[in-house]
């Protein structure tokens, strides 16, 4: 029961992080180029004013799909002996496919607009590099924390054993 709650909480947590990051990014971009992109992109249909409800809901759907995908790819069920690097590559590729689907379906920008695609891949690349770097740094920091705690545990455990012998 407790474990199920952890999984559900983890999924909701993940969805909200992706959603809020996406909306924050879009708000900044919209604030900068919203008016000029108004005619080209449905995402900035309100120009510098903000984001429409439909765009917010579209981003929520993207966040739910990416969080579910992450849950599945990094779960024990999906190719459990696969290297984390390959899982990340599959994850990355799947995200591109999902977002491309949304770009085409909701007209986030015209499909034949080269600048739009360059902008998409650039912003996606930057976001991915930043999130990957932060994940690697966080993992290293956590590893150090666990190693220190484990060494402390072993020391204390050994001292207890020594006391028992004494």
């Amino acid at each position, binding site marked *: 029961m407790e474990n199920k709650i*952890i999984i559900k909480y983890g999924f909701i947590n993940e969805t909200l992080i992706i959603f809020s990051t996406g909306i924050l990014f879009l708000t900044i971009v919209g604030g900068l180029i919203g008016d000029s992109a108004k005619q080209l992109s449905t995402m900035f249909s309100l120009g510098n004013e903000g984001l429409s409800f439909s765009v917010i809901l579209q981003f929520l759907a993207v966040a739910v799909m990416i969080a579910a995908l992450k849950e599945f790819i990094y779960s024990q069920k999906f190719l459990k002996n696969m290297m984390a690097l390959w899982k990340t590559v599959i994850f990355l590729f799947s995200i591109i496919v999902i977002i491309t689907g949304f770009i085409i379906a909701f007209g986030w920008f015209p499909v034949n607009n080269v600048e739009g695609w360059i902008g998409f891949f650039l912003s996606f690349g930057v976001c991915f590099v930043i999130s990957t770097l932060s994940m690697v740094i966080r993992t290293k920091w956590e590893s150090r924390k666990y190693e220190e705690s484990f060494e402390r*545990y072993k020391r204390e455990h050994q001292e207890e054993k020594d006391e028992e012998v004494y």
Partner: protein
Amino acid sequence: MKIHINQQVDNAETEITISCRQINPEIEKIISLLRVMDLKLTGVRERQTYILDAAKILYIDTVDKKTFFYTKMEVYETTLKLYELEERLNVNDFLRANKSCIINFNQIKSIKADLDGKLLVTMNNDEKLFISRQYATNFKEKLGVK
């Protein structure tokens, strides 16, 4: 199956006697369960039955509905299910690592964080095992980092 319980105040040690026509898988399972209570595990390797101290076991896992336990060098098969072992060995520092594996915490060499909240442990025989995010909490609590 008849169960006789002979309760006497002057009994120094609890003694269990099994009377049967021959040892069948059911009896073997009862014996295994009794041994686990004594922190000993009964395992079969190369058609020979061995009794081992639970402390010497590195981890226990299930493959194709069969349960195996691993020492530094050997692999043994047991008739017990993973959940039966988990229930009894929990007090002896055995923790669930994922849906198919229980790890002896005292046989861990090192612990590292892995992507997506998982943990990667190296056992004393240098084998690496994953602890899923679902069960990582128990390990973190044990380390006092949660």
